[in-house]
């Protein structure tokens, strides 16, 4: 009887370990498909319009009306994300001021472990013009491999609605022009 229980326990842990090990997410890398990330449609009308979303309650990143979606995983509590915020505002303006990029490139932020209040405080502090979303229970953060912040990944969306990761980067972005060029090339827009 004892032997049976012991065998059962060993088998149970082995199965659970196998399941969990296969479920441990890794950071998105070039060519990968994005794990399913469901976000709440922003209540602000301008932001809905910016993302080209209808009045649904939730959406996934490939549903954004764009060829290229730049996603920053940030935290209000992260010193580098705070330092990066003004620079990302500049990147947003650079894209918005360029008529050939404006409709193709969109930028969003996801606050890892941040509540809606914390995300809003971050937005107000740095006057961030692009949509930010809370991930207060780290559920999105876990899906993308518990990356250190800031983390950037860029999703290329094809006309048929399929998508793939074009770019993945840990840490601050350095040269915006070079970054945009890489994305144009990888998205086949250049």
């Amino acid at each position, binding site marked *: 009887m004892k032997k049976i229980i012991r065998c059962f326990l060993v088998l149970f842990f082995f199965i*659970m370990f196998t399941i969990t090990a296969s479920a441990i997410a890794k950071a998105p890398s070039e060519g990968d498909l994005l794990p399913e990330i469901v976000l709440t449609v922003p209540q602000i009308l301008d932001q809905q319009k910016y993302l080209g979303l209808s009045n649904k309650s939730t959406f996934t990143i490939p549903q954004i009306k764009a060829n290229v979606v730049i996603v920053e995983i940030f935290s*209000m509590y992260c*010193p580098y994300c705070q330092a990066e915020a003004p620079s990302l505002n500049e990147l947003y303006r650079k894209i918005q001021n360029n008529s050939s990029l404006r409709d193709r490139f969109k930028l969003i932020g996801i606050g890892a472990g941040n509540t809606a209040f*914390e995300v809003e*405080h971050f937005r107000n502090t740095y006057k961030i013009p692009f949509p930010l979303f809370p991930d207060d229970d780290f559920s999105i953060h876990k899906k993308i491999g518990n990356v*250190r912040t800031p983390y950037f990944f860029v999703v290329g969306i094809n006309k048929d609605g399929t998508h793939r990761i074009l770019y993945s980067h840990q840490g*601050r972005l350095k040269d915006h022009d070079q970054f945009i060029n890489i994305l144009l090339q990888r998205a086949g827009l250049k």
Partner: protein
Amino acid sequence: MKRFFNINLLLMVFLLIFCDVAFGVSEAYKGNIYNPGILKPTDSVLKVKVGDPAPDFTLPSISGEKVSLSQFAGKKNVVISFVPAAWTPVCSDQWPGYKIAKNLFDKNDATLIGITVDNIPTLFAWTRQMGKLWFSVLSDFWPHGAVAARYGVLRSDGVSERALFVIDKAGIIQYIHVEDINVRPKLEELVNELEKLNKK
């Protein structure tokens, strides 16, 4: 005894595998953060309660001077933020948030005091990674954890709890929150308490 040990070992492995810690360490620390894994959520018994006068203390700060709680009496509401230890994941992601929340404290006529049981050189090096902090960072290193112990937030392994105390201008404790050591307290809960205090 051996069987007991085996079962415990299996349970520990199970906890390590299935209860992953959720935190988002900043790239600012460049991989220098020590991850202690999941810890017992709380491990101390409070020695003060809401309505008590806050025990006074004087501790050295990273900027060189000594800071006493009593110096704010009659002038400012005070938030004391105890965090367990420098160079650990959740702690490293708590005070940098307060760094950009000064306006929320100012609005409610409050100041912030951050305390850990680390020594000054450790606190100095650690907080430098956070950028310029507007609040005092105090060392409760020696006698080790004496202030944390006086408030009842010193854990059995010598670090403090992740605890917030809100003290009004009369020096009375108005709010105590001992958070699960593995979790960062939500900013809005603290702000709500400060707003309540300000409305009184």
